[in-house]
């Protein structure tokens, strides 16, 4: 009798749970899955914004990987940028977070200073950086010429443009610092104390205690940074127009260019679908390797 009652309770809970989920599922379906399906559907047609879409099968995808003058390069550039920006911002923000986690004077002030770039308006940030990077009279080149070093073209050079833009992305990664800080404060002090009693030095404590405890946070930040940087478009729009040459023509920029500058919406849909798959593949790889290096304190729940 009691057991039956418990079963009924459970069933009630399930019903309530599903009812509560309905709004978010509706949102997910209409704001995510239906548009995604529509993008896939449109990408198989020829549609330039007006008239009715005309079915062309995989022609858009074939064209992307064979004759398109931008697309294959844009994949390479995007991956190159993402690698530098993700690695750079992970190392930079973990380092800054470690420093800010110490008992230093004016800690609150410095936390605000490092977080500030993240909340500044993007256009203002990029215009400011464009003055620093300017090829003839910019501040960086002024400093270089004072030091007697050959002037560099920075964002105006096809070799340096991606590292230069990645540097801005690293500087902008204040949100990662905040998450790392929160993670660092959750590393149990007892482990550090135990390691100290065992005679571990600071580096050993860092590699053997802090890092393993931080792996879930590192994983989360890595994933977020990867997804954000794979979708990079603002620096290309604000600073480089995809150039010089095609050296900063990121996937999202090519998509924007086709969809909104040329009105080739269905072709742009194909690009965004490939971009989606690409990010998906990287995410899956990251998840697949995660089991081998993430340490969850609470066991394997």
């Amino acid at each position: 009798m009691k057991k039956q009652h418990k079963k009924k309770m459970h069933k009630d809970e399930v019903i309530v749970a599903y009812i509560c989920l309905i709004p978010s599922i509706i949102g997910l379906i209409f704001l995510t899955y239906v548009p995604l399906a529509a993008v896939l559907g449109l990408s198989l047609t020829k549609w330039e914004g007006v008239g009715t879409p005309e079915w062309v099968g995989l022609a858009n995808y074939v064209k992307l990987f064979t004759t398109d003058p931008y697309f294959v390069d844009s994949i390479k550039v995007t991956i190159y940028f993402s690698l530098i920006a993700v690695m750079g911002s992970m190392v930079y923000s973990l380092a800054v977070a470690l420093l800010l986690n110490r008992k230093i004077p004016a800690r609150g002030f410095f936390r605000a200073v490092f977080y500030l770039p993240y909340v500044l308006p993007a256009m203002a940030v990029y215009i400011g950086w464009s003055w620093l990077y300017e090829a003839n009279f910019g501040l960086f080149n002024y400093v270089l010429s004072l030091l007697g070093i050959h002037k560099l073209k920075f964002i105006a050079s096809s070799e340096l443009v991606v590292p230069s833009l990645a540097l801005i992305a690293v500087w902008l990664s204040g949100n990662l610092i905040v998450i790392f800080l929160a993670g660092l404060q959750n590393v149990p002090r007892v482990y550090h104390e135990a390691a100290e009693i065992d005679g571990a030095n600071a580096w050993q404590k860092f590699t053997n205690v802090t890092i393993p405890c931080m792996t879930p946070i590192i994983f989360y930040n890595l994933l977020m940074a990867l997804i954000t940087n794979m979708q990079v478009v603002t620096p290309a729009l604000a600073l480089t127009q995809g150039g010089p040459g095609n050296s900063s023509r990121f996937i999202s920029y090519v998509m924007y260019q086709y969809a909104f500058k040329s009105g080739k919406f269905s072709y742009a849909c194909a690009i965004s679908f490939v971009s989606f798959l690409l990010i998906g593949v990287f995410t899956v790889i990251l998840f697949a390797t995660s089991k081998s290096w993430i340490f969850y304190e609470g066991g394997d729940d």
Partner: protein
Amino acid sequence: MKKYKKVISTVLGLAMVFSLTACGNTQTGTTAQTTETNTTEPAAQPTTEANTEQGSGDEIHISYSYWGTPDEAASVQEVADKYHEENPGIVVDIVCIPNEEYVTKLNTMAAANELPDCGIMSEAGVLDFGSKGLLADISDMYAGADAAPLDCITFKADGKPVAYSAANEVLVLYYNKDLFDAANVPYPSATEAMSWNEFVDTAKKLTIDVNGKNAGEEGFDPENIVQYGCTVDNWTWQLEVWALSNGGRWFSEDGKTCTINTPEVAESIQKVADLMNIEHVMPYRAGLTDDGVQSTICAGNIAMSTGGAWNIGTCLNGVDFNYGVARLPQMKNSVTICTGGPQVVFSQSKHPAEAMEFIKWYMKEENSWDSLIATGIWMPILEKYYTDEALTNSWIDNENFPEHEECVGALVDYAMNNAQSTCWYYTPHTNEFIELLRGVLGDVWTGDATAEDVLKDNYDALNAVFLGE
């Protein structure tokens, strides 16, 4: 406990039912609305019916899109209000869109079937919009009129006019008279174009390093230049003028063949790149931004700069040095290119006839005189302003323009006798073509590749874009 849960589930259930009905309601609402518009639409089409509608107190609203800042939009709205005074039945609403995203926005509006009735249009998008059927036929706009716009600023598809530019603009050479005086170098001529070699030599005399030596002198330090002799704007579409100047063409005259791989074109682009990489008389420009005059001659440390006639009104009026205007240097021919955004009627308009009347009225010089022509932003479109001296003087003799003789030589006569149409007047897909060309030329500006090589290597891709594939 159980009762409590029951209450919650009932409430949630009710909420759900309510939201569903709410959905249903809006849906019936929209259907009702659509039927409503459907009934009014055919009624609005025959003019007589539209007039009765207007007689019953309704005015016809036509929307006019314009690029520019909200300030500029306010002055355009004043002109539109004047039209309303003259034509009480018609109200013109201004849709203001920032210039850099103008076509982007129109493309999106076209996809949503929400284009304005009429508007100014980006030059490079005109024939493209036309070929998609987004422009209404206005070919009879000047039928029977005594004065037509200059032929070189008429957009043509298969020889038939599809749009008329609202302004005429040519590329010219601006120079900083103070810097010329300081170096004791004679001014460039407004009536005779100098040869390319003379131009380079003049620029060398005006390029000065940190030790005060110019680029022609022994011991000149190209790493520490404080003043440059010239900028030839390499913002991509403007490069077409150098191809024409060098006896080449980007496209055949009928707009059907892409001839950008010819030696004359490659040489014309290479000569511009050499100004930076070999002669060191021009500051490095990646050719990616449309700020040629603002970031060069207006900054005060560059002696000569190519730019558009519109720059007289958009930035040169604010400089604190004396400037002059001259003809572009010539490689083989003395030539400039002309362009100007046209006023068009979009085919999605419900009132195409009224919209065409409005833009025809709006394009009359007197309606944009104070805000655009007298300030030096637009040049007139009708031939009589170039040939009739009294009309010419009424236009250029005001404080916004450089000296009279310079304007006559380098603006009026130059535009009348030496100007050729920019490619977007006679061939579509120029938007995509110029975008690709901009990317292709990146390595030429840095000096990592020659113009000849990149144009040869990328000809197939350029040609495919040109053909709209």
